[in-house]
């Protein structure tokens, strides 16, 4: 599995000279395995991905965790959607009432976007998922609803005994007086358990989280505690707050490493960084 980060910023694209290292594009990750191409989320990072898209790829699967704007805002600018020779499958969580297609149409329509979903030349299929297991190519994928406002899933992707987990927006500590002690009562545990590599929400420093409880995101500390509970092998701290500069992110990272005993590898998500799993 080859995993490329095209965007790891949370909430809002936030380019600027003070964010050149980690990047300002919102969530978008590409996973390639043999002939299969999966894109996790369609944040603003998907635009650059589309611009350098391998012309040999004739089918692409976009797995959306949820439909908050920072995770879909790049879809309309993804070049393969305008290529009739490419088949695009979009997967995303079921809601309570409105279908995934209807919710996506709200974005692909004026005044938010000039082109409607059915006007796109690409062949688009839409698949609704919930707590589901499915295969794309040789990849085995599990999705489960996790703790974040609105219908939101995380993904566990397995191939050749390697496990990659993607939970960019997740607040497992919400309201729990037992976090992180009880696996069976912890959101996302099933997905993250023993992951080789996990991209996990770490939007806030602890002092910021205290005033943002219930917004659906994690502090660095909670992300790491969650990783300990799930016994992950490596965690990429993801979904950086749009106000955090490169300097602040480095500071937060080293302070956290100094303060906590972290029994696994942690790194900050960086745009363009590539990870390989066997």
């Amino acid at each position: 599995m080859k995993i490329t980060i095209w965007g790891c910023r949370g909430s809002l694209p936030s380019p600027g000279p003070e964010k050149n290292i980690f990047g300002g594009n919102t969530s978008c990750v590409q996973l390639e395995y043999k002939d299969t191409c999966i894109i996790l989320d369609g944040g603003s990072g998907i635009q650059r991905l589309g611009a350098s898209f391998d012309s040999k790829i004739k089918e692409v699967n976009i797995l959306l965790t949820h439909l908050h704007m920072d995770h879909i805002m790049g879809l309309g600018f993804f070049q393969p959607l305008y290529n009739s020779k490419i088949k695009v499958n979009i997967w995303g969580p079921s809601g309570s009432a409105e279908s995934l297609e209807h919710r996506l149409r709200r974005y692909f329509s004026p005044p938010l976007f000039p082109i409607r979903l059915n006007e796109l030349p690409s062949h688009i299929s839409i698949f609704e998922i919930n707590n589901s297991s499915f295969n794309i190519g040789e990849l085995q994928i599990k999705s489960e609803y996790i703790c974040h406002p609105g219908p939101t899933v995380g993904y566990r992707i397995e191939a050749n005994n390697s496990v990659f987990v993607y939970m960019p927006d997740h607040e497992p500590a919400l309201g729990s007086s037992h976090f992180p002690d009880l696996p069976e009562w912890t959101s996302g545990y099933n997905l993250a358990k023993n992951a080789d590599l996990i991209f996990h929400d770490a939007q806030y420093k602890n002092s910021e989280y205290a005033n943002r409880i219930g917004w659906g995101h994690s502090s660095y500390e909670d992300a790491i505690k969650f990783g300990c509970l799930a016994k992950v092998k490596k965690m990429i701290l993801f979904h950086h707050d749009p106000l955090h500069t490169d300097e602040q992110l480095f500071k937060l990272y080293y302070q956290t490493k100094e303060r906590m005993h972290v029994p696994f590898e942690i790194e900050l998500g960086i745009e363009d960084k590539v990870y390989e799993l066997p």
Partner: protein
Amino acid sequence: MSSHSIEIILSRQLADNLSIPVFIVDPHGNLIFYNEPAENLLGLRFEETGSMNVSEWSTIFKPQDENGKLLPAEDLPLVQTMATQAPAHGSFWINNLNGLLYQISVTAYPIVGRPNRFLGAVAIFWKTLEK
């Protein structure tokens, strides 16, 4: 060990923060959590009992009508909710494990997650009389 669905986890987190007694059961009727106010009312601690199946929790407190006649499990609101997947309400008497006789009022509602997945039920209850 696997985790409960997010809907059940959030129900427990809410129950954990309430000062009214709450029961949570899974889709099979197993009592998977009750909060501290419920422990105080029932005279039983969750850490000691752990999960209980429906035949245990529906009889352990000897639910009875005002004449002392034991009620069958299917007359209890939470069991009705499990059967119908619809809210139910009722009042009856119980013997708590400290030997006290309480009249309690119970409201049960189903937990139905997206998209229409029946995941269990919650009962909130409160003491209305004591003998």
